[in-house]
């Protein structure tokens, strides 16, 4: 089976780097971006199965990015990453088109299973 193609978007570069490397070690085709604009560019340039998106970023906020991404790639699954997945965040996120919400810090196995679920595997 083709490897999962995942884009990780978070303004914390260290975090993105570590996650990309760990997912890589587990056979995921992972890439990283550090802001919404870059993420949008990358999504346009190549195909991804799932995007892991930090909700609170400077500049373009997470919810806006969802909308923009879905304009270009409607079937793209987006998972929100945030410090607190409460009712408000989850509901708003899903209404904007997100698949689900994940709490930081993430457990790598939880992350992996949710990525697979989002990709329909």
């Amino acid at each position, binding site marked *: 089976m083709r490897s999962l193609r995942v884009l990780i978007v978070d303004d*914390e570069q*260290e*975090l993105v780097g*570590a*996650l990309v*490397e*760990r997912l890589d*070690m*587990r056979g995921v085709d992972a890439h990283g971006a550090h802001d919404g604009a870059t993420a949008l560019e990358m999504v346009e340039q190549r195909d991804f199965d799932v995007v892991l998106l930090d909700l*609170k970023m400077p500049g373009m906020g997470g919810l806006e990015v969802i909308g923009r991404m879905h304009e270009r790639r409607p079937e793209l699954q987006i998972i929100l990453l945030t*410090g*607190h997945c*409460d*009712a*408000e965040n989850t509901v708003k996120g899903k209404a904007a088109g997100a698949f689900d919400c994940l*709490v*930081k*810090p*993430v457990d*790598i196995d939880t992350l992996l299973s949710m990525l697979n679920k989002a990709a329909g595997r």
Partner: protein
Amino acid sequence: MTTDHPNGSLEHEHHPTARRPADPSLAPRRYRSLFRRVALSTAGVTITPLLIMTGINYYQYSRAIEARTRQPIESQTSNTAHAVSFFLKERESAMRFVVTQGTVTLDCTNSQLQKNLTSLRRSLSIGSFVDLGVIDSDGRQRCYAGPHKLQGRSYKDQDWFHAVTLKGVYISEVFLGFRRSPHFVMAIRHQGPGGSFILRATIDTKELSEQILTIGLRPSSDAFLVNRKGVLQSSSRTYGPALSRCPLAVPHRAEGVHVVERRDEKGHLFLGFSYIDGSPFVLMHIKRAEEAMGSWISLRGEMLTFLGISVILILLVIYFVSRNMVRRIREADEARAQVFHKMEYNNKLASVGRLAAGVAHEINNPLAIINEKAGLLKDRITLSDDDFPQEKKLLANIDSILKSVKRCSTITHRLLGFAKHMDIKFETIALDDLLREVLSFLDKEASFRSIGVSFHVHPETPRIRSDRGQLQQVFLNIVNNAFAAMDDRGRLEITIQPTDHQTVEVHIQDDGVGIPEENLQRIFEPFFTTKPGIGTGLGLSVTYGIVEKLNGSLRVKSEVGKGTLFVVELPVGDPDLLDT
């Protein structure tokens, strides 16, 4: 152990927001003094004018009635005095007529005198002349007509003879005369052609008494004549027949008619008197006060009764109204103070919450980085084919880093949860089911530590409308605390019962170490903890906040060494549920 008040409330409840005893502006002393001031000033303002008005009325009425009483006495006395004077003057005129006409002279005869007497008796209808006598200037009786035998009598040495010689007219005091009825003597001196002589007459007072004096007298009145020494000159229905002593002192001589107040053995009376000029008589007219003042006395009694009842009623009303008003004020002040404290507390809570949320968010990111980097380290060791020196130890170290990260993240998540507004989703909940569910989470620990849990559910406990998830959090927190406070083989008692004001109470009583008095006030404060290093100190403040948001109340009572009781009171929320 706890002791419940008979009416169901807890003694020494501790609310973080109720600070009744400590707040000086709510001291009972202040309200007592307020009550006193209000009551006294209101009473003063209402009663003083009432007293003044009543006093003025009383005074005016009494003056008016006194005047109304005196006036008729005065006029009656005056009329009677005039009548008596006239009577005397009439007799005197008649006698003068007789002598000036020449029918009576010094050379008189008894039979002629008798004729005069008869004609006098005929012409004057009342106060008959009993006898007539002519006395010469030496005091010798020359002629006499009448029932006595006074011919030849000498009056030379008698006072009356001197008096009439000097003054020309004389009226004597009353004496018992013919047929032992009261008479008096009237004498006039006449200068005739043959010399001066005195015409002396004895006059019967019977008809004077009966007609002039007593005419038109009311039963409570009396009119009579006395001499200056107080001897009755006419009969008095009060004091006896003529010549008895009148117990009333004769007032000093005064011109005209006067009315004074006197007392005799029968009581208070008004005395109208008048000195009859040219006679030894004083007219005394008495009227009993009770009859005259009867209406005044009853009116006065009514006024005083009215005043008394009014004052009592006013005082009663003022007392109760002031007391209630001051009580309402105090309650309002207390409620306001409570609201302020609550606001203050909520504000504090909110700012702490915001602070905490900010900190938590800030920390979360580096925490996530540590997590991933440590995870990466672990991955490098476990997922690669190489062997690492001291691989086991390295992995152990990395695991403990990861564990600490987990602990931190629990804290930050709790902080963030505390700070956020959580939406309340209402549903109908049976509290006993919910509590059993919560306890099931702690089943393992309970059985492991042999902690006994007992349930007492009042049969008429209604279901309530509330948020299931948040209630679970509340009870989980409280039960967790209870477990933490208890030793092994401790007992947890849970009681669920309805109240009489559309709420349900859940009592969670443990037999653990208890909470000391000085901490009880503070246990709901954020970050307050007696176990440094364990937990965040947020649990109970979060719990308190949730219960408040659900319109309930959370109270605690505790005794060191005996145990702790938490009472969660929640509104039923839906009146329909009360009947089910």
